Each structure stands twice: as C-alpha cells, then as structure tokens.
C-alpha cells in the first residue's frame, strides 16, 4: 500500500491515504479526542471534538481548523494537534457539551470507564463557568438489560447510528430538536434489537449502561478480569469476564478482529448471570445428600473402575470432554448429542475438511458481497453473525461510492449514495427472520424445500451438480445463482438448526459449485465442533451400551432426548454420576452430582463454528469444592498437562493447545495481571474474616496472576485481560492495542484455526429430497429459535429469562383459523400464534423451551382443538 507523508506538529509521519486524519493519528498512538467517530461505523462529523489545525503549506502560519475525522489523509498535508487555537477550540467544544451535563459522576455507572471523562481530562476543560439552568429529561424503561439516564447525553448520535444503521433496529431514535434532542424510544418499552447491549459500549457517556451490572455495581478499576469466550452459541465471541468479591459481575466485549470485532449479542453479554444463579450446583451431592469432596471423589473413582460409559457435552471444554474420554476409555465415550444432530455436525465438519470451501471468520463475512442463507434464522441461532451479514449487504453499494471517489469512512455520504440499494442477500427459511429487512429476497419454505432451492441453485451454477428444477424453483434459483456468480466474495450460510442433512448438503453443493465461495455453518453450542472433532459415537449409541455406570459431563439429557427415552435410559444404570455447573432434570436423577466450574471459573478450550480453537481463563476462583470438570475426572495437575495428553491422544486437536501461551509464559519475568493497577480494597475486603491478608492465589494453569502485579506491557491477545492505557479508561482504549485501527490486535488476533479446507472438490451430493407435502390433521413441528430462551445456560439469567417467550405453537394464519387461541399438542394445552408466510403444513415451536426441550425436531404431530 502506498503511504502518504503527513506532517503533524512539524514531524513527518506515514499515513494510509484511504483513511481520515483522526483514524490515522490514533493509529500512530497520538491522543486526539473524539466522540462521534467509531472505528466500525466511520465518521459523521457530528461532535466537532476532533478539531485540528490544517496548514496549506510550509509557509502558512495561519491555518484553519478542520475536523480530523472528516479530513482525508493527503500526501504532504500539514496539521497540528497542539496548535493553541485547536486546543482552545476542543476545550470550548467540551465546555459546550458539558453545559447541561449533570453532576452525576459519583453515581454514574460509566464513571471510571467513561469516554467523556477521559476526553474532558484530555482537552483540559476543568472548570464550570456556566451557571444557568440545565435542561433535563425523563428516562425511559428500556428493558431488563439496558439502563437509560438521558441527562448525560452529549448528542454524538453514536447510539442511533449503531442501533438503526449498523444493527438494523428501528425502535430507538432521536426526538425533538436544538438543545433538547432526546435519544430513546417513542415510549417506555424493551429495546427490540438483539444487539442493544452494545449501546453500553458504543455510547461514550453513561446514558446507556448495563442494567445487570447496576444490581451489583463495581467500578472497572476494581474488577479482576480474564480473557474468556462466550459459551452461549457456536460463534465463540471473545469476552472479558470480570469478578469482584468472588462473584461474576459483568461481561464486556473483548476485541478480536477476526471474530466479534467491537460487538456482542445480548445473549452473550447478559447471559453470564447464570453463573450467579440459585440453580448452581455448589456442593457434591451423594444419593440426594450434600457430601464433601473427598467421599464424592472416592465414589466417582470407584464407579469409574467398574463397567462404565461416559457421555460428553458440546457445552463442555475440549479438556473436560477429553478427561472423561480418558477416564472411561475412548470406546466407551459418547458425544452427548442425539444421533441426528451428531450426524449433521459430522457432515458439516466433513464438508469443511474435505471440500474446497473455507469457513470465513465473522470479519470475512462482513466483507462478502453476495450471501445465500439456507435454513438458518441467523439472528437466533448465531446472533453475532447476523450483525456481520447486515454489513455484508453494504459491500456492493459501497462500490458505487468508491467509484465516485467517496471514501468508505464517510459514513453518511456512502449511505446517501447507496440509498435503499442493498447487496444481494437471499434468505430461505421456514419462518420470517430478523434479517429479512436487509435481504434482497426472502423465501419461505419447508426444510426440504429450502434444500431443494439450494440444490437448484447449485445446478444452475455448475451443470455437474444434480438437478431437480421444476419451473416454480427456476425463477428464484436463477436470481440467486446469478447474484452469487457475479459476486467477488460469495458466501453460503447454513447449519444444523432445521435438523436437515439435505440443507447442509445443498449448501455444500452451492459452495462447491462456486470456486472461491466461503461456506459458514452455524453450530448449536459453544463446543459442538470441538466435540464433533473428537469423533465419538452419538448419544443414541449410548442408549444401547451395556454398563453399570454412566458418567455424564455437563449435559442435561432431558434437553437432548424425549423425557421418556431419558428416563428409561437412566433407569438402566445402577449408578449415574453427573458433573455440571447447574441443576437440571438430569442432576436430579443422579446418584452422584459433582459441582463443575462455570466458564468464568474455569480454564479450557472451545472450538467455534469457524473451526477456531480459543482458550478461556478463570476470572474468579470458584469456591471449593467447585472445580473444572477435567480436574474432577482426571489426575492432571495443570492445564498444560492435560493439553499435552490431549495432543498425544488426539493429534488432530494438537493445534488447539497453541490457542494461548502455556502457564510458564512470562513477559520480562512477570505474569500478566488480571486486575488494573488501581485495584482497591485489598487490605480491607477480607479483613472482617482475618486481618492478615491472604497471599493472592497462585495460578498454575495460566500465565495470568490473581492480582494487579505483573507486566505493564501488552500481552499476547489470547491473554489480554482488559483494555486500558493511561488517559484511556473506557473500552475505547482498544485503539491503542491494535496493529491497525479496527484491524488485528498488535499481537495478532486470538485463537488458532484447526479446520482448514481440502483442495479437491468431493463429488456433489445427489440426494435431493422430494417437495414437502403437507398432511391432513398433522403438522411438521419445525424448530423456531429464540436468542433469548432457546439456549440452556443463558435461560437461567434473570434478564434473559424475562425476555424468553412462553411456550407456543405457530401456524399459518389460514390454517390457524380452524383453532381458537389455544390448541392441544403433545398432550398439553399450548397457546397458538399466527405467523404470516409460514408454509402450510408446518407448525413452528420454540426450541429449548419446555415442553419442547428434548424433542427430536422436526417431527410430525397432531394438533387439535382443546378438548
């Protein structure tokens, strides 16, 4: 790339001419205050905070004030950040923004990590001169997750730009005018968008704050933090988990350029509260009675010595699954997923490993310029991916802007040029999805017909692919094929959510018919792919296994199989031992329950749907006897030991061990501190128990320390516990840690890919299903996913639980006409909702919500009028 030379305060710097001056200056680690610019959302020039002086040439002494974020980098440009007039201008801007600012810092949840505080200090505005009335606003109730305190707003417009333009929401807006502009909803109510939680980080002030944190509030400087990975879906977004007084206090986004970037979904951000839930298993339970660790462990060893099988879990780490596999023996270890899903996952992994299509990272998805989604309601099955897909439709219109020489960071002009034009995004699902508004076309079809559409597209792209192309399919299929063919970076998205192998095969065919196409599969749980790579037989095979004892790892079988099947299965064993972090129907049936550490209390690795192995670390030490499942199950002393054992037993997972540096890693002889250096209260927090402060616990498993002592330098990204640099207390500090603004972190993005494509195209799949036929009096129960409610652990977080739907069954309004408000289904009275466009013959039911948890969906069932 050709760089431009720009003079800043008389010194020459190399800058990227595709960028604006603010971006370029920050990248060079200069301090220049800003508010409205956001690295993922570009510039709009709304706040006027980033003013610098620009000079015509060397002889120009006068210069003029320009907004750095709105001024392109140009060869030979001369600017000054320190120019007294620019300094004064920036001070005046802050003073203006502060006129109405309430005297709230001490009781403001943003305090201590407030971008407005940081920028105020940076500009040097330190004295209030304005003594007239401040304007005030009433706050709104925005739901259980996000809190509103509108007086603190500085009208930077970041919130509405993120919410409306970036995330596609439409219930948050700016109202009123002049100095009374208000950011909120038209009335009180829960924010509808699934990414609303990002407002907490996007808003540079304390207008939008984390409502779950508020209930156990702690300042950022007082938190003990560790790099972690979200466990609430298969994408594995990077998070920072934070502890105080032995309790998990909150999660924030941990920037990973390839994975989640700057944003998380609300399930991931707020689901953490399950760790503090009443339903946690905190003590071993032996035959219904609390037991202490030694007899419990003794009992486990005894059981493991006999005839035993082990059932793993897609929500347990690689290490824990491996520990169980080692304990019971590889041939008696079963993946804890039902056969149908296990086969789908295996098929996905095979397609990705053997075929030429590569899994894209979320960043790559953002840059794809034509997308076909087969069968996935992405917002509800892999939420963060939906945010990336929403950006992908801006790729083609952005090319027009580029042709008109409008730089892409000029957010507003680029959107004006694009108008309503969207890049091609095609969605084929049974029921409407939250991405439909961004799609060029959405097709509503039964699962088999979704697959048929995919097969038709692949045939149009490559005559070698099998064909079954009735006229009705030809039109839509041609449109899609055409769009994919003319794209530079086409992408196919699919997954196991509809339980259909044909859909996955169709997606593979399309991707293989398009050389260079990317293929993204969603994965249902945080380690579904990792478990699948262990190649253990499915749960169904375990049903036939003969043994006295079953050891079940972090798995509620009642959410996997119908209750009757599980009852019968568990009854066949003389002993059932369960390790889990939360109580479940399965732990209730167990003879022995061992308390397993939840993600924030554990070290381990997960493989996400991209095939990226990522490490998560303890943010807090669990209260004994809670410990990681792999510690209960094995004799390994440290994480490195079990990783070593895993690498030799399962060589194809060996690379997972390099997802993060081992425990012996040091920076200049020091560990990486989990807490900021201003961590307070060390000599008082436990003084009521003992005035002699305990020695900080040692961490044998990782190079992180349980204290504020350690290296002040930037650690490898997988070990980055939090983002902070002097003068940058808010999460915006991440600018200082990136190689390139909005690019990779300086030490490279965390995680290692362990799933790479093959070079040869395998033969096309040729099992095209026949068209879906509706039946009389019977409906195909089709899974409908809910970001809030469908996932097992986040359901236990009170905020998420409040947003979860009640059980329902959905029918096409015409078919629903024959019923009233309720129907009988599976022997239960269920309320009926109407979903326009749901294909006839399908009945949508919410996944993971009792009584639908554990059903093998899709399945046929009668629906009748309430008797």
């Amino acid at each position, binding site marked *: 790339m050709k760089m431009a030379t720009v003079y800043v305060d008389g010194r020459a710097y190399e800058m990227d001419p595709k960028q604006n001056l603010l971006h370029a200056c920050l990248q060079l680690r200069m301090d220049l205050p800003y508010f409205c610019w956001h690295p993922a959302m570009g510039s709009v020039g709304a706040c006027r905070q980033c003013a610098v002086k620009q000079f015509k040439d060397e002889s120009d002494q006068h210069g003029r004030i320009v907004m750095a974020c709105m001024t392109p980098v140009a060869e030979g440009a001369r600017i000054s950040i320190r120019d007294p007039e620019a300094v004064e201008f920036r001070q005046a801007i802050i003073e203006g923004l502060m006129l109405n600012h309430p005297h709230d810092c001490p009781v403001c949840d943003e305090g201590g990590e407030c971008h407005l505080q940081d920028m105020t200090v940076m500009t040097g505005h330190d004295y209030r001169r304005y003594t007239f009335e401040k304007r*005030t*606003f*009433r706050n709104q109730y925005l739901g259980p997750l996000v809190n509103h305190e509108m007086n603190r707003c500085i009208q930077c417009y970041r919130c509405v730009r993120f919410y409306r333009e970036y995330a596609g929401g439409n219930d948050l807006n700016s109202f009123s005018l002049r100095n009374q502009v*208000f950011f909120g909803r038209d009335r009180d109510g829960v924010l509808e968008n699934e990414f609303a939680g990002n407002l907490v980080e996007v808003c540079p002030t304390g207008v939008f704050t984390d409502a779950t944190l508020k209930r156990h509030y702690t300042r950022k400087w007082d938190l003990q933090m560790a790099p972690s990975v979200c466990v609430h879906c298969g994408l594995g977004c990077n998070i920072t988990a934070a502890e105080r007084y032995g309790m998990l206090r909150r999660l924030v986004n941990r920037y990973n350029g390839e994975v989640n970037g700057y944003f998380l979904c609300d399930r991931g951000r707020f689901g953490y509260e399950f760790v503090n839930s009443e339903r946690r298993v905190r003590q071993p339970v032996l035959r219904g009675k609390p037991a202490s660790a030694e007899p419990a462990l003794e009992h486990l060893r005894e059981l493991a010595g006999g005839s035993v099988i082990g059932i793993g879990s897609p929500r347990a780490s690689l290490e824990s699954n491996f520990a169980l596999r080692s304990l019971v023996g590889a041939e008696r270890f079963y993946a804890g997923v039902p056969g149908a899903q296990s086969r789908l996952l295996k098929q996905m992994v095979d397609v990705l490993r053997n075929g030429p299509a590569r899994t894209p990272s979320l960043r790559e998805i953002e840059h794809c310029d034509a997308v076909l989604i087969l069968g996935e309601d992405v917002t509800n099955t892999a939420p963060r991916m939906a945010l990336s897909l929403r950006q992908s439709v801006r790729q083609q219109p952005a090319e027009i802007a580029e042709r008109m020489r409008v730089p892409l960071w000029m957010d507003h002009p680029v959107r004006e040029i694009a108008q309503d034009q969207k890049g091609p995004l095609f969605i084929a699902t049974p029921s409407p999805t939250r991405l439909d508004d961004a799609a060029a076309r959405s097709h509503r079809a039964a699962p088999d017909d979704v697959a048929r559409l995919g097969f038709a597209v692949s045939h149009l792209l490559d005559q070698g692919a099998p064909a079954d192309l009735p006229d009705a399919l030809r039109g839509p299929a041609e449109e899609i094929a055409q769009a994919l063919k003319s794209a530079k970076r086409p992408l196919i998205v699919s997954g196991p959510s509809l339980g259909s192998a044909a859909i996955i095969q169709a997606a593979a065919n399309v991707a293989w018919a398009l050389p260079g196409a990317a293929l993204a599969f969603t994965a249902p749980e945080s380690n579904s792919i990792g478990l699948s790579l262990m190649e253990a037989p499915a749960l169904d095979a375990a049903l036939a296994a003969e043994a006295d004892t079953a050891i079940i790892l972090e798995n509620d079988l009642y959410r996997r199989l119908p209750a009757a099947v599980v009852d019968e299965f568990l009854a066949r064993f003389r002993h059932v031992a369960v390790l889990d972090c939360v109580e479940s129907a399965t732990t209730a049936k167990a003879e022995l329950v061992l308390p397993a550490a939840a993600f924030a209390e554990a070290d381990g690795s997960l493989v996400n749907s991209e095939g990226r192995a990522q490490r998560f670390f303890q943010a807090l030490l669990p209260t004994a006897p809670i410990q990681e499942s792999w510690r209960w199950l094995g004799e390994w002393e440290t994480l490195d030991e079990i990783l070593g054992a895993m690498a030799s037993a399962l060589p194809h997972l060996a690379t997972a061990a390099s997802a993060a540096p081992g425990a012996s890693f040091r920076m200049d002889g020091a560990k990486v501190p989990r807490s900021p250096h201003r961590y*307070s*209260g060390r000599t008082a927090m436990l*003084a009521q128990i*003992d005035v002699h402060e305990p020695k900080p616990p040692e961490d044998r498993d990782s190079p992180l320390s349980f204290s504020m002592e350690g290296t002040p330098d930037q650690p490898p990204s997988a070990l980055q516990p939090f983002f902070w640099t002097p003068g940058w207390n808010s999460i915006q500090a991440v600018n200082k840690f990136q190689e390139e603004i909005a690019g990779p972190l300086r030490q490279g993005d965390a995680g290692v890919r362990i799933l790479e494509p093959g070079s040869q195209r395998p033969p096309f799949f040729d099992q095209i299903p026949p068209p879906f036929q509706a039946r009389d009096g019977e409906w195909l129960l089709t899974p409908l996913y809910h970001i809030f409610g469908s996932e097992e652990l986040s359901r236990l977080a009170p905020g998420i639980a409040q947003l979860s739907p009640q059980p329902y069954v959905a029918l096409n309004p015409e078919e629903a006409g024959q019923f009233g408000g309720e129907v009988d289904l599976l022997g239960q009275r269920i309320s009926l909702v109407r979903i326009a466009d749901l294909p006839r013959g399908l009945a949508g039911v919410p996944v993971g919500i009792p009584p639908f948890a554990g059903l093998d969906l899709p399945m046929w069932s009668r629906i009748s009028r309430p008797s």
Partner: protein
Amino acid sequence: MFSVVRTIWYVLLHMFHKRITVQYPDEKPYLAPRYRGRIILSRDPDGGERCVACYLCAAACPVDCIALQATEDPTGRRYPEFFRINFSRCIFCGFCEEACPTYAIQLTPDFEMGEYQRPNLVYEKEDLLINGPGKYPGYNFWRVCGVQIGGKDKGEAENEGPPVDIHSLLP
C-alpha cells in the same frame, strides 16, 4: 570538667522553665478540626447517609484499606451495602477525604483508637456512620446531582430546568 558543670547548670535552669508536658490522658490536648484522626462517615443535612458508594475513596487509598459495595434503595438512591475500613492498615493520609465528592468520609481529631486485638480495628459502616454532617454542614450531593431519587424528581435538583417534553411540537 567544664562541660559537666555546664550540663548540670542547664539542667538546673530547666527547673524554672514553663512545663509543656501534658498530663494525657487526664488532660486532653487541643487538636485542630483538620487533624487527621479516626475516619467517620457523615450524614447530609437532611439526615440521609451521605456516602453514595462511588468507590473513589477506596481508589485513592494508598494502602487499599477501604472496601465497600454499592447498592440502591428502591427509589434509586445509591448507598454502600457495606463499608469497611481496616484501621490497622490506615495511614491517616486523608486522601479518601480529599477524593470524596460528597463530603461523606471525613477524618476527625480523634486518635484514641488503640486496641489490643487487631481485628477490633476493622470498622464496619455501623462503626463509622455518625449522626451529623461533620465538618461540612451544608452540602447535600443529591440536591445537586441529576439522578432522580425518592423525594426528588427530575428537574428538581439545583439549577435544573423542568424535564423536556419530547412529544411537544413547539420549537
């Protein structure tokens, strides 16, 4: 020899000097109000707990001997759920008082805190909270702050205009 005699002479002279030894504890010394002794938490002029649990004192404390946890009453007024000072660590530097934005935490001219048992030097909120405003009689943070609490609606703080009606069509 001479020096010995001179020393004795000086000692003798001292017998006629004014005595400055204070008969503590029978006689109490005068300590300025700004003397930095035992720390207290004060109340605002309306009798409410002044501390808003902002954690600033804890952050300022060089020996990290203040620990607290914020909580809120149902009306949104924030206060410490617990507030603990470990006086066996405190160096009475006064940084906490300096950092406090509400005048809640104050050092007092009381230094008589000797204990035989170190645990007795761990003070909880009940031990710290006094019944008056201490050195700063007039200030009530909540009257200045923009957050709504029980008894103070939006727009009712000092220097605040009434809340904007965002649905109004008037310019």
